[in-house]
C-alpha cells in the first residue's frame, strides 16, 4: 500500500538526505524570487538605449552613476538587468508550457490507458508521429510561422512537451487498471470519468510531478534556443537567448554579453535537473529514459 502514501509525506520522509534535495531546491527558489521581485525593484527598460554606456565591461560605472555589475551590451543596456528580466520570461513561459503539457499529456495518457482499444492505438500513433520530428524542429516551425508572441511560443513548446507525460500516464494507468479496487469500482458501476479521477489519477500524479521538473529544464533550454534564433518572443521582451544572440557580434570585444546569460541558464537547468532527479527517486516511476 506504499503507493497510497502522499507526495508530501514521501518528500518529508527523505529529509535525512538533506543536501541533495535542498540545495537545488534552494537555488531554484532563489531564481523564482529574483524573477518575481527583481523587476519590481529594478527599473529597467529593455527598449531604451543608452549609447554613452555601450559595451562597458563588468564592474564599470555607467553614465547615470550606477554600476554595471555584469557589463552592458551593444545598445548600452545593463546585462545584469537583462538576466533578471530574462529569468522572469523563462520561468513564466516554462511554467505555463509545462503545466499545459502535463495536463494535456496526463489526460490523453490516462484515457488511452483506461479506455484501451482503438482509442489507445490512435493516440499512441499520434505520439509516435510527433516524436518523429525532433522537438526543436516542430517548435521552430510553429513559432516561426505563426504570429510572434507569448501564446505562439508557449504553443510551440507545448506541442512536443506533452508526449512524455502521456507515455508515463498511460503506462501507470495500464498497470493500475487491473488492480482490485479499480475492478471492484468498475463492477459496482462507477462510471469512467469518476473512475479516472478518483482511482487512477492519484497514482498518475506523483510521477508527473517528477517528470514535470525535468521537462521544465528542457523547456527553458528550448525557449532560449527559440529566442536565440530570433523566433521566440518579440525583441521588446528581454530573454536570455536573445541576450546571448545580441552578444555574438561583440564576442571578441565584449564577451560578457553572451557569457553571463548562458551561465544563468546553465545553473538553473542543472538545479532543476538535480531537483527532478531527487523527486524521481522519491516519487517512484523512472523519468523518461531514452529507451
Amino acid at each position, binding site marked *: 500500500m506504499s503507493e497510497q502514501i502522499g507526495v508530501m509525506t514521501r518528500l518529508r520522509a527523505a529529509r535525512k538526505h538533506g543536501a541533495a534535495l535542498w540545495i537545488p531546491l534552494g537555488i531554484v527558489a532563489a531564481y523564482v524570487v529574483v524573477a518575481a521581485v527583481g523587476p519590481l525593484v529594478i527599473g529597467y527598460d529593455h527598449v531604451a538605449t543608452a549609447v554613452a554606456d555601450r559595451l562597458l565591461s563588468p564592474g564599470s560605472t555607467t553614465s547615470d552613476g550606477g554600476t554595471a555589475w555584469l557589463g552592458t551590451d551593444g545598445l548600452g543596456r545593463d546585462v545584469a538587468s537583462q538576466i533578471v528580466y530574462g529569468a522572469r520570461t523563462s520561468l513564466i513561459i516554462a511554467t505555463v508550457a509545462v503545466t499545459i503539457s502535463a495536463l494535456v499529456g496526463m489526460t490523453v495518457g490516462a484515457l488511452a490507458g483506461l479506455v484501451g482499444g482503438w482509442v489507445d492505438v490512435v493516440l499512441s*500513433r*499520434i505520439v*509516435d*508521429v*510527433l*516524436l*518523429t*520530428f*525532433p*522537438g*526543436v*524542429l516542430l517548435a*521552430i*516551425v*510553429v*513559432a*516561426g*510561422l*505563426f*504570429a510572434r508572441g507569448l501564446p505562439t511560443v508557449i504553443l510551440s513548446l507545448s506541442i512536443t512537451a506533452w508526449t512524455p507525460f502521456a507515455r508515463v500516464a498511460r503506462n501507470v494507468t495500464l498497470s493500475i487498471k487491473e488492480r482490485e479496487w479499480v475492478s471492484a469500482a468498475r463492477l459496482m458501476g462507477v462510471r469512467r470519468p469518476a473512475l479516472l479521477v478518483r482511482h487512477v489519477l492519484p497514482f498518475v500524479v506523483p510521477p508527473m510531478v517528477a517528470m514535470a521538473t525535468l521537462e521544465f*529544464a528542457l523547456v527553458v*533550454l528550448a525557449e*532560449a*534556443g527559440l529566442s*536565440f*534564433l*530570433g*523566433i521566440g518572443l518579440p525583441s521588446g521582451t528581454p530573454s536570455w*537567448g536573445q541576450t*546571448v544572440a545580441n*552578444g*555574438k557580434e561583440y*564576442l*571578441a570585444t565584449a*564577451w560578457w554579453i*553572451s*557569457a553571463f*546569460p*548562458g551561465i544563468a*541558464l*546553465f545553473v538553473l*537547468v*542543472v538545479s532543476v*535537473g*538535480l531537483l527532478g532527479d531527487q523527486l524521481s527517486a522519491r516519487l517512484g516511476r523512472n523519468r523518461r529514459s*531514452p*529507451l
Partner: protein
Amino acid sequence: MARMVLRRLASALVVMWGAASLIFVVIRLAPGGPALVLLGPDASREEVDALTTRLGLDRSLPEQYLHYLLDVARLDFGDSYRLDMPAMEAVLSRLPASLELAATAAVIAVCAGLVLGLVAGYRRGGIVDRVTSALTIGLQAFPTFWVGIMLILVFALVLRLLPSSGAGTPQHIILPAVTLSLPFTAIVARLTRSSVVEEMEEPYAATARAKGLNDRQVLLGHVLRNSLTPVLTVVALQLGALIGGAVVVENVFAWPGLGSLIVSAVSNRDYAVVQAAALTIAGIIVLLNLLADLATARLDPRIRVGAG
C-alpha cells in the same frame, strides 16, 4: 524475420503519412493562407488568386489533402518563392552538409562516450567515473548555442586556432561537430557505463573469469558486444535530437546545411521549403529508426524470436 521487417516497414509508412498530415494541418492553420504564404508577402492580388486556383486551394479540404499526399509521394513540394527553385531541390542541395555535420558529431560522441563509459563502468567509483557523472549532468544542461559561442570565443577568437564560421576546410567542421556532439557524448557515456556495470555482473562474465580471462579481456571480448545493443538503440533514437540540435548549431556557425535553411525559410514564410525540409528530416529519422530496429534485432537474437 521477414515478417518482422514487413511489419516495421508498414509501421514506418503509417508514421510518415501521419507526419505529412501534421505538416498539412500546421500550414493550413498558419495565418495568411497558404497561397499568400507560398508567394511571399509582396505578391499581388491577381498572383495570389492565380496560385490559389492552380494549387487547388479553392477546392474542398479533403480534395486538397488528397492532392497534397500525392504530391508528397512524388516529392513535389512546390517552388520556393525566395530561392526561385523547386523546394525539394533547395533541400537536397543543403542536405549533404547537414548529414556531414550530424555524422561527424555522432562519431565523435559515440567514440568518446563509449570510451568514457567503458572506463567509468570498469572502474566503478573511480575518478573517471565520478568526473564522467558530473560531466554528464553538466553537458546536458548547457544550452548548445551557448557552448558553440563560447567555443568560438576560446578557440577562434582568443587562441585563433580554428575558424569561427562557414565551411570548406576540415578545420571548419571541428567546432560545430564538437558542439553538437557534447550532449550526445554525455548520454552515450552514461548508458555505456550502466550497461557495462550490469553486464559485468552477468553469469557469462563470471564464467569467462572462471575460464581464466582477466577483467580487461572479459570487458573487451564479451561485455562490450552486449553493451552495444542498448547503445545502438539510443543512438538511433537520439539521432533525431542530434538533427534537431544541428538546426541551432548550424545557425551559430553559419554552417550551410538544412538547419540554417529551415530557420531562414521559417522567418521568411517560405512554406514550400519548410514543408520539404520538415518532411525530409522526418523521413530520415523514420528510416534511421527502422534501420536501428533491424540492426538491434540482428545483434540480439532474443528480439528476433520475440522473447526478452
